[in-house]
């Protein structure tokens, strides 16, 4: 199927992206995040950390229509495609913004593939949800779930659930005798065990489900197919977040290299500093081009979407690792401190690298398609 040469990146999406960039810049999320973190620094003696986000900012995002962006018009949304969602998610990543939007956008694409209009309508109204797909070992595959379904009753534990503290409910992958099914459970019906994680901008939990009455999203046996169709969107959204964060890492490191003087010159003068920064740009740009390609493929050429999404996430994971490494190294001592924002992005990228599978996982899966 023919794809638009411009990725479908039309004027409306450009405006949306610009608006997101301005909005997230003004909110100064990281300043607020830092005050929420006061006293929690030391992992041995510090206070327990809550999954923080700015509920007022979230409400504004809902009002701006971001949450309902990809919800079909029939369910009360804006009916935009993955290219639009990716444009927003890239800005979220650039701002390292803790928000239930990331999980909710992911949930939207799963619900779309399951044609679960009732739940999509809830998202359009501002409801939030996160995906609960993985088992204990974190194999990035919904198949790895250890939750089981008996009729509409779910039991088991789902691990590595993102944004668990911020959302109203979960889309749970569970195994029934007929095969994989997808279900919705409310946060009140489960026990949320908050995990202590490296990333300061996310929260993560294992959720314990004990004989909980769930709403069916995808009938047992159809869950694999729904997840297979949604997976390209999930990988691409994540890769977009990472591309945005990588661009921040690039620009921040370049700016620092212009300011920091050693041996009577800004350190960016020295090729040992200049060239790795250029390599950060090369990596970030490769990821970004692959992200738009993957989003466009999902919107216009679903047959090719998985191949393109695997490429985007593989590239994003490599880029995230490289840009994180160089951003801390080239900032020198200050980049290694809690005080520097460089560490916040570095840790967000560390987390993203492995979500839904790291680079070598993606390449292994991609090879099967070549």
């Amino acid at each position, binding site marked *: 199927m023919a794809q638009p*040469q*411009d*990725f479908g*990146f039309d004027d409306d999406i*450009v405006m949306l*992206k*610009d608006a997101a960039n301005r909005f997230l810049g003004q909110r100064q999320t990281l300043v607020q995040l830092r005050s929420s973190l006061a006293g929690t620094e030391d992992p041995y003696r510090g206070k327990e950390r809550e999954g923080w986000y700015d509920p007022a900012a979230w409400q504004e995002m809902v009002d701006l229509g971001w949450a309902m962006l990809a919800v079909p018009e029939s369910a009360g949304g804006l009916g935009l495609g993955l290219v639009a969602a990716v444009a927003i998610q890239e800005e979220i990543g650039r701002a390292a913004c803790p928000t239930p939007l990331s999980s909710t956008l992911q949930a939207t694409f799963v619900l779309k593939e399951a044609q679960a209009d009732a739940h999509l309508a809830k998202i359009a109204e501002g409801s939030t949800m996160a995906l609960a797909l993985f088992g204990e070992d974190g194999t990035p595959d919904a198949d790895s779930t250890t939750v089981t379904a008996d009729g509409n009753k779910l039991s088991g534990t789902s691990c590595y659930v993102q944004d668990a503290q911020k959302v109203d409910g979960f889309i749970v992958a569970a195994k029934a005798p007929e095969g994989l099914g997808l279900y919705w459970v409310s946060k009140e019906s489960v026990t949320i065990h908050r995990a202590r994680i490296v990333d300061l901008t996310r929260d993560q939990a294992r959720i314990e489900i004990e004989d909980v009455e769930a709403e069916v999203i995808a009938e047992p046996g159809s869950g694999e197919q729904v997840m297979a169709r949604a997976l390209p969107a999930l990988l691409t959204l994540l890769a977009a977040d990472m591309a945005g964060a990588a661009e921040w890492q*690039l620009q921040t490191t*370049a700016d620092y*290299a*212009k300011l920091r003087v050693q041996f009577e*010159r*800004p350190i*960016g*003068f*020295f*090729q040992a500093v*200049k*060239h790795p*920064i*250029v*390599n950060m*740009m*090369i990596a970030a*740009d*490769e*990821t*970004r*081009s*692959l992200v*738009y*390609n993957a989003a466009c493929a999902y919107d216009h050429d679903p047959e090719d979407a998985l191949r393109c999404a695997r*490429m985007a996430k*593989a*590239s994003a994971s*490599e880029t995230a690792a490289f840009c994180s490494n160089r951003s801390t190294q080239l900032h020198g001592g200050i980049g290694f401190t809690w005080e520097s924002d460089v560490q916040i992005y570095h840790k967000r990228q560390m987390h993203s690298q492995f979500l839904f599978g790291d680079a*070598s996982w993606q*390449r*292994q899966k*991609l*090879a099967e398609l*070549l």
Partner: protein
Amino acid sequence: MAAKMTEQQASPEGRPEAGPEAGKEAREFREYCRRWLEENRPPPTETPLPQASYEVTYDDHRAYLCDWQAKCYEAGLIATDVPKVYGGHGYDNFQSIASDEVRRSKVPYFLNWIGLGMVAPTLLIHGSEEQKKRFLKPIFSAEEIWCQGYSEPGAGSDLVSLQTSAVKDGDQWIINGSKVWTSLGSLASWMLLLARNDKQDKYNGITCFLLPIDQTGVTVRPIHKMTGECGFCEVFFENAIVADDLRVDDVGAGWKVAMSTLTSERGAATGVGAVTHTESPLSSVKELIELAKTTKRNGVPVWDDPVWRDRIVKLYIRIEAIIQHARRAPIEAINGGAMRLPLQGKVVGSEIGQDLNATALGVLGMQSSLYVGDEHAVRNGRWPLGYMNSYTGTISGGSSEIQRNILGERILGLPKTK
């Protein structure tokens, strides 16, 4: 962008004339190019052509390629957007379509790539009216092959240090000194020359000339590359003469002229239709995957070895990224600035190409030792040859190290490394 010309010119049958209705016209033009290339594909040469046009050495290849380029020019695939008054075809923004189709159809490349890629764009910007009328058409038709006299033994990446001298003598200039790494030097009849007219003024003391090579003051000596092929030449000037009306732009404007030429060389610009390779990166990586699937070690395809497979898939992904760059680059809202992606083209493309060839050697294992002419060599030694030749990409036209300086300074605003 070329102005549209109103005069009519005889064109091969079926070629649409330039006019309004851009979308439909563009589609028809692409169709036309595709059909023409299919119908006029030349028969293969007796001995295979080198992998890239800058490696052509022999007269039979020269004759064959000049003939091919002339046909493509007549058909409108070269100088597509150049005004008719200068021998072009007077279309508006159709060159990229023609060049696309040439690359896609896997026909031979164009021998006069320096003329097309560098001299013609330079003349179109800086040349006098007489120079354009005299020189452009024979560049397009490959009647006159061009080389470029920029690099010197002491001025490679640091081009501005060049020392070849130009001394004014009445209405001509006397040239002394030498150039090196001159691609096509042994085939060319003209050279785009940079020479120093003022030793005191580093940047404003250089002048650009169009130098006839067939004269007693010019000696051309071939240099053999590590591959054994003759890839380029040394050129020596002993009181060589160039007329003042063959000077390009003002005395002392040579550096400015050179920078605009190097933009054509380093950037993604197709100029007036230079196509130097027939193999695209995508076709090469697909070939590499095929090679890994068919090459066995201990009875098992190399592709089944996860270490090699991972390395190949990494390349496959990076090559897809280059392809997507071309798509993203024109979109202002997401290209990060007009020059950010085009300026990465050379360093990224050449380094991936090198990695790709090096990976192929690893896939082949001991078979990679078999070189051109060995009956057991895979594809007549194409992979070891390609690996060695890949250094042309990472060194010439501004080495990867210089490219990174340019990117850091021009795109990211880092302080200049002089």
